[in-house]
């Protein structure tokens, strides 16, 4: 891997918000495409941050900071991006499910996604299934991220899945769940498409869905 890309990875890993723009600019000056900088540099850096969060070395504030670091770099990259690419920014709907009002995890996911070029439609907390599905129809968003902290509220995930089936758009959507009370078993039980344990996982999953289509 090129030294300049490794520098991007290190800068994100070290959460160095002051250095990120010049490091990214240096890659562009070397003729590396914005897409490659995102794929090889930024994504790899974020997944290292994700691993460090898992092992306790990084904490919530560090995840928020990682999102800020990447966001800082985005204007530099967007300037050089193919205009077709930027116009086709993928939309993601995020919501904390009905009955639950916890939003820290969802907000961190939103930050990481928007820093990575997604257009995030954040519907807030205690959001009904019908509002989520209506939003999907009116905005054309195909990706939905549902957050739930309270295990008492997991039934609201199924409500969203069922509402999308009723609206006849279930197979056009990818519904991803996350939050303290969720798991891959719960995803199966509720009929959702994927489960993400961390915000970095969520990024990887949503990117995977885009790549697959």
């Amino acid at each position, binding site marked *: 891997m090129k030294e300049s890309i490794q520098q991007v990875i290190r800068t994100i890993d070290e959460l160095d918000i002051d250095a990120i723009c010049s490091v990214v600019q240096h890659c562009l000056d070397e003729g590396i495409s914005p897409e490659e900088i995102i794929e090889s540099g930024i994504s790899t850096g974020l997944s290292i941050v994700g691993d460090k969060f898992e092992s*306790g070395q*990084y904490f919530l504030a560090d995840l*928020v900071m990682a999102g800020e670091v990447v966001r800082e770099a985005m204007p530099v990259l967007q300037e050089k991006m193919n205009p077709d690419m930027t116009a086709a920014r993928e939309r993601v709907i995020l919501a904390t499910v009905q009955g639950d009002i916890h939003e820290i995890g969802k907000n961190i996911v939103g930050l990481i996604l928007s820093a990575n070029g997604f257009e995030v439609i954040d519907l807030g907390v205690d959001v009904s299934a019908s509002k989520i599905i209506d939003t999907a129809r009116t905005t054309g968003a195909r990706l939905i991220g549902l957050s739930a902290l309270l295990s008492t509220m997991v039934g609201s995930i199924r409500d969203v899945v069922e509402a999308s089936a009723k609206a006849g758009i279930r197979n056009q959507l990818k519904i991803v769940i996350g939050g303290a009370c969720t798991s891959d078993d719960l995803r199966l039980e509720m009929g959702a498409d994927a489960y993400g344990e961390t915000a970095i996982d969520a990024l990887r999953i949503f990117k995977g869905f885009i790549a697959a289509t």
Partner: protein
Amino acid sequence: MKGYTVTVKPSGKSQVFPEGTLICDALLDMGIPLKTPCGGKGTCGHCRVSVTGNQPPRTPSEERILRGTPGVRLSCQVPLTGDVEIRVEERLRKKQRRVPHHGNDRPYGLAVDIGTTNVRISMVETGSGSSYHLDSFLNPQRRFGHDVISRISAASSGDVLKTMQALIRTSIFSSIADSLDALGISPERITCIAFSGNTTMLYLLLGKDVSPLGTYPYPVSAREFSSLTVRDLGETLLPETPLLILPVLSAFLGGDLIGGLALCHKNGIRKNAFFIDLGTNGELFLLDQSGLVHATSCAMGPALEGMNLSWGMTAEDGAIVHVTQGAGGLFFEIMGEIPPSGISGTGVIDLISILLEKGYIEESGVFASPADVNLPSPLSFGETDGIREIRIGNGIALTQVDVRTVQLAKGASLAASELLLKEARCSADDIEHVFIAGSFGENLNVEHFRRLGFIPEFKNASWEFLGNTSLLAAQKVCCDPRFLETATRLRDRTRELVLANHPEFQDTFIRALSFSRAPS
């Protein structure tokens, strides 16, 4: 599902349980007062029993703890795979208790604090107010989840709700029967049983529907519980004995907090005071300059009660309950003066505080680099499965993830405290009294607790650790019939702040996770 018979020797008592039931759960259900201070992690060795019959091979943690003792198992590690006979060690069945002078016919009341994690029972001489510790044990409902939300969620299945009710009732009343028997006190001398606890625990005791408590906006169906007797719980020991139960304010502000409030009030504390009860659900109140009561709650998790930590345990034999620093390194105070098998909440607070003070843990909570520091004897850095740890000895360690767990607890309580002060328009500097409560089973080192920053600095206040105020309030209820009235009146004057949807909660919480000292 298949069922297997568990027979307890020498009594011969037997019962059938579903395949896969842990032997410790089966024994608890049968009323055997088994202690599981590490919460079923298989690290403390307290739940050892002799097992004969069909059983799975020993787990690695059993091998480590039991070594060469054939036939002995850690009952928290063994799921039922066939019929078994269990021999429970005598020391578990007959516990030594400090016997009060009871060569008289003075009446006694019983006080019970039902915590999400720990249950404590004491006996009170209603005339003099003298109290005696009877028993404490982990709440047997823990197998359905470690916090109130997971219990509420589990209770949405009717069978589980009934099982949880039966578990708490059986465990409390068999403990009471056992204790009175051991003390030679006739049940007729018990004139009342007082209960304190959070709203979910009290509802589960009384057989009330807990599901609304877990759904925003968390409505409560009852806030006081009068004219009940033991018979209403379906128990046969002392059926006519009245139940005296502390009132609750809301789903997350329970009888435990109201009890603490009434205790402070009785002691003449009427204004400029801050109180926090450090439980699995943290509850706090503030008395402002004009004496108005403001209260809120926060989810802290059971870390301070010794749970959810790699080597955590409750304050029982083998627990490191205090850590102090001496010239030759760290000194560990171990309960029962036996080799340590875990660390309690008070021990964890001491240890992290000392490590922070010396820079072995940075203010962000991350462990310092081994290259930069020399840990004091007997500590050493290590790593297991990619997670860094500070090893204490005897296989016990504090991991980086454990420190994060403590930070989540302290971030929640500090954020809740700051927002409560703000909403009440109080300055931390105006607070004159700070009271810390919690059922640690040991005294909390207040200086170490202050260093961790669970609550603001309150630099003009006197700080005091009150112990388990939930239990103390229940004891007071036994002796003073007017205490419940006082508690109810104060409850009605309390303004509740709901934090989860507070616009500033997120930023405040993330900032509050750091161990850095607040700028003064």
